Every structure is written in C-alpha cells, then in structure tokens.
C-alpha cells in the first residue's frame, strides 16, 4: 500500500471510495458506489457503460462540478472534497477543460467571446490573441464574430473544443462530445480532440458509447449500475 503523498505525486487524479446518492421521492438512490480510480498525468481514459449507469455523474465528480456523498477526490494534489465551491471553481479554471454533448456555449456571446471567457475569468490580458489562435487551429478563423445560433452543431462543438483547450488545461473531461453530431462530423471532432490532446499533452477522460472511440484511449473503464467492473 502506497502512502497518500506518493500517490499524489504519481497520479493526477486519485479517487477513493467515491459514492454518490441522492434523495428522490422514492427514497435514497445510489448513483455511484465506492469507486476507486487512479489516473496518471498524460493518460487517456474512456468511461463506457449503459445509459444511466452513472458515467456523467462520475465525470462531474472528478471535475469538481459536484460533491460526492462519500469518499475523496484529489486533483493534482488538491483535495476537492474539503474545498468549498469557490475553491473548486479556481481549480476548474486552472486545471480543467470541458466538452459536453450539448456544447454549452453562451448563446449571446460570439464564438471569439465564448473562447476568451475562461481566460478572462482568470484575468489573462492576452485572452483575445490566444482565443483567436485557437479558433484558427480548429478551423473557424472566419467565424469569430458569429454567435452559436449562426453556427452548425459541428462548428459549435469546435468552438467548445477551443474553449476547453484555450486555458491549456492539465485534464480534459469530455462527456459524449459527439453525441449530438452525425458520424462524419463526429469523427472530425474526435480527430481534433485527440490532436489537441496530443499537442497540449493533456490528460483526457472521455465518456462515450462508441467502442471504436473508446479503443483510441489508452485505458477503458466500464460502469454498471454505479459500480466499476
């Protein structure tokens, strides 16, 4: 058995005995139970499982978007479970990038503004330059001033990718990033995702239903009814 500190040095994410349960009208519902997970820096990992098995819940916990009912999560040595919401927000801003199935772009901001946002939140003066560069990298240099409504789904997801990578995150979480796209567009997005991942040497945690996509990751874990199998 390794000591806590050793683990923290060696692994980027250390999750121990992670559980999540919620109160519903029919009583307590266990969504995740006692999950242990170690992820090394630079590693890429796919989470697969049936719909409703708890994949999104797990990834949200790991990213600090929500708090577990029990267990601990260390992200780059920071114990998320003892932090308050603002502390986690700071960690998210500094270390984490996100891509969602439903893009989650702000409808009133332009593509450029959407990408600049995380940099601006951390007070980066050169937000515009970095954002413009990244948008060209994803092939949208001609759509900078367009709002999400004026973009196709694939283009929106590319903006979301640019937004996720613009802070040079240590870890990227992607929850079914191609779920809303046709297979061709999806493939383009995935290629882009892996390229960016490689360029930035980012740790990648990817939720997917797609076996082929999962196999492009170094490791795959499977969830069944909230348990690792």
């Amino acid at each position: 058995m390794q000591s806590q500190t050793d683990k923290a040095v060696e692994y980027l994410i250390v999750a121990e005995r992670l559980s999540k349960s919620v109160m519903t009208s029919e009583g307590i519902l266990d969504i995740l139970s006692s999950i242990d997970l170690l992820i090394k820096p630079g590693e890429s990992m796919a989470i697969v499982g049936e719909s409703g098995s708890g994949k999104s819940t797990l990834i949200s916990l790991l990213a600090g978007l929500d708090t577990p009912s029990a267990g601990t999560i260390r992200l780059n040595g920071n114990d998320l479970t003892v932090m308050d919401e603002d502390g986690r927000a700071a960690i998210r801003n500094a270390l984490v990038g996100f891509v969602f199935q439903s893009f989650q772009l702000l409808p009133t901001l332009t593509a450029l503004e959407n990408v600049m946002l995380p940099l601006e939140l951390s007070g980066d003066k050169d937000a515009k330059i970095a954002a413009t560069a990244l948008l060209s990298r994803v092939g949208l240099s001609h759509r900078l001033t367009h709002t999400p409504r004026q973009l196709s789904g694939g283009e929106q997801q590319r903006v979301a990718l640019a937004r996720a990578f613009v802070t040079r995150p240590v870890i990227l979480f992607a929850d079914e990033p191609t779920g809303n796209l046709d297979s061709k567009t999806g493939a383009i997005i995935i290629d882009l995702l892996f390229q960016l991942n490689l360029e930035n040497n980012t740790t990648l945690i990817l939720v997917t239903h797609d076996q082929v996509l999962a196999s492009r990751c170094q490791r795959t874990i499977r969830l069944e009814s909230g348990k690792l199998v």
Partner: protein
Amino acid sequence: MSHFNLALRLLLRDRRSGELTLLLLALMIAVTSSTAISLFADRLQRTMGEQAAEFLAADLVIASSEGLPAHWLEKATEWHLDQAQTKEFPSVLIENEEMLLGSIKAVSENYPLRGYLKITDSDYAQEKSVQNGPGPGTAWVEKRVLSALKLKLGDPLMVGDKKLIITRLITYETDKRGDFYSFAPRVMMNDADLQASGVLQPGSHVHYYFQYRGDPKALTEFKRWIKPQLNPSQRIMDIHDDRPELGGALSRAERYLGLSSIVVILIAGVAIAMTTRRYTERHFNATALLRCLGLKRRDILWLYGWQFIILGFLASSFGCLLGWFVQQALFHLLRGLLPQQVASPGWSAVLFGFITGMAVLLAFALPPLLRLKQVSPLKVLRRELEPLDTGTGLVYGMAFSAIAFFIERYTQDFAMTATLLGSGLIALLVLGLMIYGLLRLIAKLVPHVSLSWRFGLQGILRNSKASVGQIMAFSITLVAMVLSFTVRTSLVDDWQKHLPEKAPNHFALNIFPEQQPAFKKEMIQNGIDSSQFYPVVRGRLVKINNIPVQQIVSKDSQGESATHRELSLTWAKDLPEENKITAGKWWQEGQQRGLVSVEQKLAKNLKINLHDQLSFTIGSQQMNVTVASIRSLEWDTMKPNFYMIFSPGTLDGYPSTFLTSFYLPEAQKNVLNDLVKKYPGTTILEVDRILKQVKTVLLQLTKAINYLLYFSLMAGFSVLFAAVYATLDHRIQEGAVLRMLGAKRAFLRKVHLIEFGLLGLMAGLLTIVLSEVMLYSLYTHVMHIDYSPNYGLWLLIPFVGSLSVSVAGYCGTRQVVNKSPLTVLREL
C-alpha cells in the same frame, strides 16, 4: 368542455412552476386593492354623505324666502318623504331693560330629520344630545342670550307677544349655517308658538327651510321635479353640494383614492404581462409537441385560455375576499376618527373588484398568450424556431384600453382621464427613446471595462428589446409609486397648510369704531393673535352696468346667493395678505374714490369684468363704483375674506363696524365671556367646532391614504420579481457555464449586481423625468395644487430604484449562484 378538463389537468401539473404563483400573486394584489379601495371609497363617500346630511339636518333642504306651494308639500308626501321645517328671522328681544337682536329659529315637530342638537340644563351640566327641538311654550337659547338679557334658566322670555320659558341652553345646533353674517345669538322655539307671537308680519325678512328625508331615489326624483319650479329666491341644498369648509379636500381625496387604485392595477398588470410572457416562452416546446400530436391552433388557444380563466377566477375570488377584509381592517383602524355610524359595504364594489381581476388578466395576459397559438409544430425539430411576437400594438392597445377604462371608472372625470392617458402615452414614447439612447451610450463603454462590468453591461445590452421593456416596467412601477407618494404628501401638506395649528377659530364682528382701539388692546393684553381689523359696511349689490343683477344671474350659479343677501363691504389701502390680483391693478396711494376690487369667482359667476359699473344699496342710499381689479383669494384660511374691497374714502359716511378673526385655544375660552360683557354689541362667532370637524375629516383621509400606499408597494415588488423571473432561465444557464469554466460565486454576484443595479439606476433616472412631467400636469390640470419639484426625490429615486432592483435580482438569482453547477447543467 373537454378543453376545460384538459386545461384543468395541465394547470394542476403546472402549479409547481414559479411563474404561476407569481401570476396569481400579482392578480390577487390587483383585485385585493381595487376591491378594498372601491369598497372603502364607497363606504367613506356614503358616510360623508350621512355627515353632510347632519349639517343640513336633512337629506334635502329647500331654502326659500316664503312658504312653499301646497302641492309641493303634497308631492313630497307622495314620494314618502319625511318633512320638517324651520323659519329663521331676526327679532329684537327686550328683557330687564336690556336689548338684544336675537336670531329666532322656529322649528317644527320633526326637526331635526338628521343630526342632533346638544343642550344642557345648566352652565355646568353635561351636554345631552337630543333629536327634537323645544316643545310649545318653551325656548332654548344660546348662553349669550342669558348674559346679554340678564336672564337665567327658567325665566320667561318674550318673543313678540308670546311668553316662552327658557328651559335649556343650546350648545350645538346640527344645521347652524357657516354663514358668518347670520351671527346673532340663537333663540329656538316651537313652530306652534309662532302664530301667537305675532312677530311675523307680511314683509318681514324670514328664511324658510323646508327639510326632507327619505329614500335617495325618491329624493332625486323630488329634486328633479322641484328644480324647474323654483323662483329666484328659492334654492335646493343637498348632501352632494360642495362643502366649502373642506376646501375641496374630499373630492381631491376621492380622486386620489381612485388614482392609487389605478396605479396598483397598472403595476400589477405589468407584473402579469411579464410573468405571462415567461410562462408562454416556457410552454413553446410543450405547445409544439401538442400540435404535433394533432391539436389545432384554436384548440391551443382554448386550452391555455381556460387555464387563465381558471386562474383569474381563483385569484379574483380570493382577492375579493381579501379586499373585503382589508377594507374592514381599514375602517377598524380608522374607527376613532370616523363617525359612530359607518355606512355598510356595498356589494357592487365587491363585484367591481372581481371584474377588475378578470379584466386585468385579459388585458395584460392575453396578448403574450396569443403567441402560443402561433407555435409551429416544426419547433419540435428545430428548437430555435420561436413564434413571432404578437403585434406589440395589440399588447399596448389592450393594456391602454384597460387602463383608460379603469381611470374613467374611478374618476368619472374625463379631463383627468385624458390628462393621465395623454401624458402617459407621450411619456412612454419619450421613455422608450431615452432608454434606447442610454443603451447606446452604454454599448460604447463595453470595450473599456473590466470583465464583471462587461458581463453586467452585456447582460443588459444583449437583448436590448427585453431590457427596454424591463426598464420601462421598472420606471412605470417607480413612477406610479412616486406619483402616489408625492400626491399623497402634497395633499396632506396642502390640507395642513390650509389648517395651520393656530388658524383663526373665532370671528369678532360688529365692533363699533369707537370701541375698536380698546378691543384691540384687550386682545393684545390677553395674548391673543388677531388678524387685521377690517371696517365693514353692509350693502347689497343691485345692478351691474345698470342691469339688475337678478336678470344676470342664472338660478343655479353660485353667484346667486351673493345677490340676495347683504354683503360685507370693506375698504383697504393695501391689498390684504393672501389676495392676488388676477386682472387690473390695485389702487395707488391717493387714487380717486369710487373704485372696487371684486373677488374672482364671484366676478365670474356674475359676469363682472374690469371697468364695469356696479351699483350697491347701503341702507337707503345707492352708490356706483367702477371695477378696478379682480382678485383671487384663499377661502379656506379662516381669515376674513371679502368679495368686495373698495378704494379708501369710497365708503366714507356710511355706518361701519369692524371685523377681525383670531385664534383662541380651548383653555382660554373664558376670555370670551369678558369680551362679550365689555362689548355687548360685539358678536363673537365660534368656528372652532367646524374647524375641528374639518381637521378630523382630513386626518381620517390622510390615514386611509397612507394604508393604501402599501398596496402599490406590494404590487411594485411583484413587478420586480416578475422581471427577475423573466430572465431567470437564461441566467441559470449562463451562471452554470461560467461556473464550470471557473467563475467564482462572488464574480457572478457582482455581474448580477451590476446588471440589476444599472437597470434600476436607469429606471430611476427615467422615473425622475417621467414623474416630474406627470406630476406637473396632474397638479396643474387636475388637482389644482401648486407644483414644485422635490429635489430630494431626484437623489432618492435612482438610489431606491437601483437598490430595490438589485435586492430583488439578488434574491431571485440566488439559485443561479448557490446550486452546484452540475445540478444546473442537468436541468438544462
């Protein structure tokens, strides 16, 4: 009916959503307040009517200088009206070698039909209220009669040839006229003794008062029947007549009540429109689905229509009930001030409250709701496919008509309705333009500010149409509140100004010129503040430009009474205080005699113009003067006021006395006895009772109005929350994404604070402009009060606007900031 059932089920499923609660609340506030106000105003009005009846001792009085034709009296009997009559005339009383000009009042059996007399058995005994006059063979007198004639209770008093026993002292006479010149001390006797006294000879100067009481409808009919038959010496008085001693306070207060009720309806209406809008937008998807499932557009309309009708019915019923309680509570709170007998609540007022609710809902909720009808079933496939806004013309048209209807209903005053609507419409237009301009200005700032400010500003700018609407709604709300607050304050101030603490409450009349210096000295010695002493000559206006006045004056006009009684004429070197020249010039030092200055209203009624020739009879002489100026004056100051002021010297040689008014506190009343003893010829008129009553009435109104202000406050808050709710969905998403990207809660709070604070600030600034314009037109054209802007409010309003919107925004967006970002993202 199947629509109804489905609508009911959908409504029940929807009950958890915030906007329905808010809608119900807003509607309930509107109904509660309009029910409470209309009930309250209705009851107050009728209570005041009853009080007015007390002043007349009847519901309707015909004043006449002669008896009435017998068939008039029969007609009154036909209408089942109770009748009484009084005759008033002066008569010289002589007892113990003392002489006194008494004002005799012979009363019939039923007198007084309304109100009561107060009498005592002796100087010190408790006052007693009675509802009858003296019996045959007896007389009730004012105390002054006893001291002047060296009599005591139980002594006989000769009135003409009839010996009456003085059995009581009169301390209060319900229908004692505020006519300051019929001031001789009262002797009241029974009508039955009049014949025997023989004082009434053909040609004696008698005022007959024929008094009636009965069903309001019958009275109206009777009045209508009698009116065309009156001769110039006859006059009808009833409870609807203006009561000059209240200085228009009552009618102003009634207008104010109506106004504040409209204000509440308007504000609540804004809240309803806003919540319905959000409700509609949230139901786009469901509606598209229903249409995919085969519902036609008409069905959709009915489905939602029924839901709103059910809502309206619930809110209106409950609001009526609440309104009834509130009104009851108001009367309870005011019970110390109101007369014992308060008129009972009227059901029509409750019904009106209910109709208000349904009408407000229809006017403000229908236009946004109509959008649902236009939802395309294709929206199921393409989320962004939103139905067009229903013509904004319809929205504003409906709201506008509703407001017009309510204003007209409450004020029943076309001028006021037109003024309010006209200035309101212009104001809205100007407002919209100004907001647009402000937004343009703000847009210029965006590139130069920090991130949180940028987000705050962009929050306002990104949907500028919605922001204009929101700021407009806030402004209207604020304007409404400022309006009701300011109008209230100036009403009360105005009343207080007219009734200063030490307003004169006594008049001294008939002070002989040779006694005047001594009288004045006596006042000063006793520390009594008196107004100027005015010389008075009694005279009658008989001709204007050589045409007899009787031919000029129409029967109903107010000038009438001035023409068939003697006027108090005075002269003055300088223009008395509180008099203002409105036409012509006040005379200069040493200018010629033979000039007169006429009071404005009288001049208008008698159609007197500058340079007209007026002829007066004074005693047996006639004199002519030229009108040199027209004056306005403040009637309700309780200082001596004169219709006619002559240039110095004009009235030289005519017998004159002096007149003054002064303030005497209750505790110093015994000074009066000394004065009366020392100057027996002088008459002291005690108007402090009338004044006290006026004060009481105004106080009750002020208090009631204060309570009603809370309604507009509540309605205002419902708007605030409605506005915050209207943008909540958007904010929730934005907040979640920002937090996912690492924004701190403090940052989000700051963004919201900036956004709402700015919205409030802009609304506040516009409110100042708007309310100043509206207040000005309201004051000058409707309330007829002088207007001066309140600069304190200029500072306060933007601050309050900013603060209240921020607070509401802060509370409303708490969940955006506090929920875990995942929960929020899941809900999207």
